[in-house]
């Protein structure tokens, strides 16, 4: 019975990948690892996506933004948590994020900000200047953030041809035209 369950899990996983995913690896040249690159489908002509009602979450934990890079759809509201026993602040100097500044707040409190325009907004903390995070505000809900080995999977992408872009906080962006049909592999290389 246990073996049957495992087999079914693998079967579903394989079926899921076949149902319109873009997957592959991003190689971030010159960096320690290839984590935190955002791979996303660019705006699709004639198609809009409503902002989700659910809020996204960005935490400040152990003096770090967690996750380091948060991809969201345009119009999404992000809840900014503080899980540390010290005061934190979040602000962004980016005009595309309306240069918001949420002030300072203590552990357990939550502040929110809605990101209304496409943007790669840097998040900084005035209390701890070494902290750095990003919110990638994207035109479509088809996006993923790479793992340390550069792997990514963008799930549930309908078949079609799209411009797929890669953005990284430290490297130059890249893009490709990708024809998606079932499980589609596409690798990228980005550098300074």
């Amino acid at each position, binding site marked *: 019975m246990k073996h049957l369950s495992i087999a079914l899990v693998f079967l579903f996983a394989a079926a899921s990948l076949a149902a319109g995913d873009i997957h592959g690896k991003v190689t971030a*040249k010159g960096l320690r690892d290839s984590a935190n690159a955002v791979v996303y489908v660019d705006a699709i002509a004639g198609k809009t996506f409503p902002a989700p009602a659910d809020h996204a979450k960005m935490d400040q934990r152990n003096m770090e933004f967690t996750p380091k890079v948060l991809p969201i759809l345009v119009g999404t509201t992000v809840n900014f948590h503080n899980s540390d026993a010290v005061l934190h602040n979040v602000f962004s100097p980016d005009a595309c994020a309306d240069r918001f500044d949420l002030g300072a707040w203590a552990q357990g409190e939550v502040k929110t900000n809605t990101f209304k325009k496409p943007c790669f907004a840097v998040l900084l903390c005035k209390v701890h200047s*070494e902290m750095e995070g990003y919110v990638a505000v994207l035109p479509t809900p088809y996006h993923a953030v790479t793992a340390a080995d550069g792997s990514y999977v963008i799930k549930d992408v309908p078949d079609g041809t799209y411009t797929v872009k890669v953005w990284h906080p430290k490297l130059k962006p890249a893009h490709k035209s990708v024809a998606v049909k079932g499980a589609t592999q596409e690798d990228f290389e980005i550098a300074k």
Partner: protein
Amino acid sequence: MAKCRRSTLVGFLMGVILVVLYTPSANAIPAFARKYETSCQTCHIGFPKLNAFGEAFRLNGYRMPKETEDQIKMKPVSLGSDAYKRMWPRAIYPSDLPGQVPLALNVKMASVYASSIDDTGRTLIKNDFQFPQEANLFAGGTLGEHISFLSEITWGENPDGSTETELERAHIQFGSFLGPEHLINLKIGKFAPDFADGFHEMLLSTNNGIDTLFSFNPIGLHGGAELADSGGGVSLPSNVKGVELYGVGAHRFFYTVGVANGLGVANGNTGTGSASKDAYARVDYKFGGMALDGDTTGVKLPPENWRERSFRVGVLGYHGSGKGTDFPFTDDAGNAVNIQDTTFTRGGVYASWFFNDLNVFGVALAGRDHLNTFDDAGTLENSASYRYRTWFVQADYVIVPPLQASLRYENVNPADHSAGSIRALNASLSYFIYVNVKATVEYHRDLRESKNYDLSTILRFAF
């Protein structure tokens, strides 16, 4: 004539003592090996002598040419995120710290067998275990994108058991802060001046420094006659307290200009000291091999990183004033006098030729000193200019990577012709037990007198 010869031998005796007591410190800094998790051989032909990459690393402010984040294995501690650069001047510009305290230690054990002739013509033999002879504590690293630092505290033990501790170097450096990368770098502090790049004592393959170049004393009753025992009045300073601009342009052109403290009142000298500053400059060009900024475009280099075929040539100059600093002497009539080196100028050429395993390099330098002699009452007795010439040539050869040989000839023609030329030979054979453990046998001899020599066996390690 016999008196003159005796005087020369006494001079050389002082030189031998100088060699024994003031051997130069070695500049091998494992703190960088730890930071990049790389072998000493990445930068050294055999420590402390740098290879072409090590020279580019040094000139680049102790950073690898075209350095990338993944080359730095010891993750630095952030003192402000990169994105905070955009906040400047509304926030302090971000920086970082080395991931660990970037310390390194060099230790040198030496067994010195020295022969010399004293005032009475008697041969003196000293056979001394100097265990340890010297230890150097280095701190070197980078702060943020443009700043680097290097400091060295040296502890040494003299044959009489006394010890000395000195802050030999401590400088901060602002790299590539203006204009194209590598072109404009600023160094402030106490440092080895870059006019001696390529032949400074701390980066030589030999244990003995080039005393005829750095320790010749150009001050005397009839111009300089001998090596200095210590302190001021030397031909060229091996370390300066000052400010230096240097840079590399078009990959292969090197320049440096600096301003440094002049002669001071020290080591038995008297007077008010000089209020003026010394100035120096050097320009170089390197043909072939790895470029001075590490660029290898259009150059085919062998995988053995001590090898290349290149030729580097440059000119250097140094100008200063010792006005106000008295050097006490006794004149020919037995009267006490003071001599001031009111203005001094040095000009020279440097060349270094690499041909695979062989590196031949040398300097020819001419010096001019305007010496004012005052009697006890401060009345000017004599004012005259004196010239001296000095040169050396050294050949370093990598027999096999662990076994390296070096041979050097040194010569000074002092302004005081009665002293005769000072000629010396230095030969060494080094065996690298490990890349950071080096055993050297070195022979240094006064070519004017066969009984003036020293034979040293040195074990040096760095960690």
